C-alpha cells in the first residue's frame, strides 16, 4: 500500500510536469521549423532554421529587437525605481512612529481592492496634461507608487529586531545608513521576490502601455507581439519566435533569482 502510494504520487507529479512543459517544448521547436512545416512535426524539428527569428528582424517595422530593448529598459528602470520608493516607505511604516502613519496604512488597504482600470482614463488625461504621454518618464513615474510593494516590504521589515537598529544608532549610524547597511541586506530574499514580480508585471502589461506608448518606436514587446499576431496571423513560425523572444528574459531572470523568489514570496503571505 505504501509503495503503491509512492508510485501514484510520482505518476501524478510526472503527468503534471509533462502538462506544464510540453506546450513550452512545442513552442521552442515550432519557432525553429520552416514556416510551412510548423504543424508537420510534433516533438522534433528535422529542418531547423533561424529564418523565423530573422523575419522578426526584417518584416517588423520598427523591428522586434527595438521592442525588446524598450521592454528591458522599462522593466529594469521600473524595478529600481519601485524598489527604492517602496522599500523606503515600507521601512518607515515598519520601524517608526510618525504623524499620518495610520492614514497611510488605511489608504494602502483601501486601494488594494480598487482595480487599476478605474484610473486608466483620468490617469491618461493627467499624463497628457503633463506632456508625459508617449514618454518613458511617464511610464516609470506613473507606476513608482506601488502600494502592494510597500505592504510586502513592511511585512518583511517587521521581522527585523529593533535591538539591531538601536545598536547601530549607538554606533553613530544615520537613519538612512541603517536602512542601507542593515535592513536591506537582511530582507534580501524579499527584495529578490519583489524584483521578479515587478519585472514580470511591467514585462507582461499590455493595456496601459498600449494607451501611453503610441509611436511604434516606443512599443514594448507585448504591443509588438500583439500587432504581429494581427499582421502575420498565417506566419505561425514567426509568431512562435516572437513569443520565445518575449518569454526568454523572464525565464533567465527567474533562474537567477529562484531561491530568493520562493522564500521571499511566501514569507510575506505566511506571516501576514
Amino acid at each position, binding site marked *: 500500500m505504501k509503495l503503491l502510494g509512492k508510485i501514484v504520487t510520482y505518476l501524478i*507529479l510526472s503527468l503534471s510536469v509533462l502538462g*506544464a512543459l510540453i506546450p513550452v517544448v512545442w513552442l521552442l521547436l515550432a519557432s525553429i521549423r520552416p514556416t510551412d512545416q510548423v504543424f508537420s512535426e510534433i516533438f522534433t524539428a528535422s529542418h531547423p532554421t533561424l529564418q523565423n527569428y530573422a523575419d522578426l528582424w526584417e518584416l517588423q517595422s520598427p523591428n522586434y529587437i527595438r521592442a525588446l530593448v524598450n521592454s528591458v529598459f522599462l522593466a529594469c528602470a521600473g524595478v529600481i525605481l519601485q524598489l527604492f520608493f517602496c522599500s523606503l516607505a515600507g521601512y518607515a511604516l515598519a520601524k517608526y512612529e510618525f504623524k499620518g502613519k495610520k492614514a497611510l496604512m488605511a489608504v494602502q488597504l483601501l486601494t488594494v481592492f480598487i482595480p487599476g482600470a478605474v484610473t486608466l482614463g483620468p490617469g491618461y488625461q*493627467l499624463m497628457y496634461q503633463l506632456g508625459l504621454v508617449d514618454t518613458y518618464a511617464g511610464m516609470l513615474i506613473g507606476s*513608482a*507608487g506601488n502600494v502592494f510593494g510597500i505592504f510586502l516590504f513592511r511585512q518583511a521589515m517587521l521581522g527585523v529586531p529593533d535591538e539591531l537598529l538601536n545598536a547601530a544608532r549607538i554606533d553613530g549610524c544615520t537613519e538612512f545608513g541603517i536602512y542601507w547597511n542593515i535592513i536591506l541586506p537582511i530582507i534580501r530574499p524579499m527584495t529578490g521576490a519583489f524584483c521578479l514580480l515587478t519585472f514580470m508585471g511591467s514585462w507582461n502589461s499590455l493595456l496601459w502601455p498600449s494607451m501611453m506608448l503610441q509611436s511604434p518606436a516606443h512599443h514594448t514587446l507585448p504591443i509588438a507581439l500583439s500587432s504581429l499576431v494581427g499582421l502575420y496571423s498565417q506566419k505561425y513560425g514567426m509568431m512562435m519566435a516572437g513569443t520565445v523572444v518575449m518569454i526568454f528574459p523572464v525565464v533567465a531572470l527567474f533562474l537567477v533569482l529562484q531561491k530568493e523568489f520562493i522564500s521571499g514570496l511566501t514569507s510575506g503571505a*505566511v506571516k501576514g
Partner: protein
Amino acid sequence: MRESSSFFKKQQKLAPYWFVLPFVVTFLVFSAYPYLKSLSYSLYATSGPKDAKFVGLSNYTFLFSDPDFHQAVANTALFALLSVAIQLPLSLGLAMLLSQKWLKGVKVWRLAVFLPNLLGQVAVGVLFSVLLQPKFGLVNIGLSKVLGEAMLDKKWLSDPQNVLPALVLVQAWISIGYNMIYFLAALQNVDQELIEAAMVDGANGWQRFRAVTLPAITPVLMFVLVTMTVGSFQLYELPRLLLGGGGPDNRGLTIIMYLFNNGLNPGNLGYAAAVGWTLALMLAAISAIQLWLSGAAKKDA
C-alpha cells in the same frame, strides 16, 4: 558630544517623513488624484477633455441595463468561479504531494510546475491560440490520442460553448504552479506532531486533513482565494490575445474588455470610470463575503 546626540535624535524624528515622501508624492499625484477624478467623472458623459456634461447616475443606470455589460459580468464571474473551483484543489493537492518527506527532487518538480507562470498572459495567449486550433493544434492531437478521433475537430476558440472553458483551462495552466508555491510554504508550518498524534488516535487521511492541516493553512488559503478572485475579475490580456477580442457571441467578453471597448476607446472617460467603480464595488463585496465566510468557518471548527 551633546550636540551630535541631539542631531541624531532630531534625525530619527524626521527620517520617516523623508522616507515616505517619494512614495506619498507619486501616490498622491498619479494614484489618489486619478482615483478621485474618476469618481467624479463617473457622473459625467465625456467625449474628450473639454466636453464633459453632468449626467448624474445615468452612466450607472445605462450600464445596468446594457445586455453587453450583463454578458461581460456573467462571463467574468463564471470564469472566476470555475478558476477557483479548479485551481484551489489542484494547487493544494500538488503542494501536498510535494510535501511528502520521502519525495526526491522536490526543487525540480516545483520548478517545472511553476514554469508556465513565468510566460505571462500575453505570450500564453499567443501560444495557445495556435495550440488550440482544430485539426492540427497540439491540444486536440493529444486529446484525440486519449479520447478518440472526434476530439481532433473540437473547436475551442470559434464555438461559443467552448470559449469560456478554454479560457479557464489556459488560465489554470498558468496559475496552478504559482498558487502551489503559497500552499507549499503554508504546509511547512503545519505541526507534524499533531498529525502523528492524530494518526495514533486512528484518524484517517481526510480526518487528519480536516482537523489539523486545514485550520493551519486557512490564512494562506484565504489569501490565495481573495487574490485569485480579484485577479480573475480583472481578466483582459488572455482573451484579447487568445480570441482577438470578445470571441464568438461575446462569450469571451470580460468586464475590463467592456470598459476598454465602450469607455476608453470611444473616448467616453465618464462611462469607463462608471464601469471601473462598479467593478471595484463588486470586488469589495465579494472579498468581504469571502473573509466573513472564513471567519464563520473558524468559529464553527
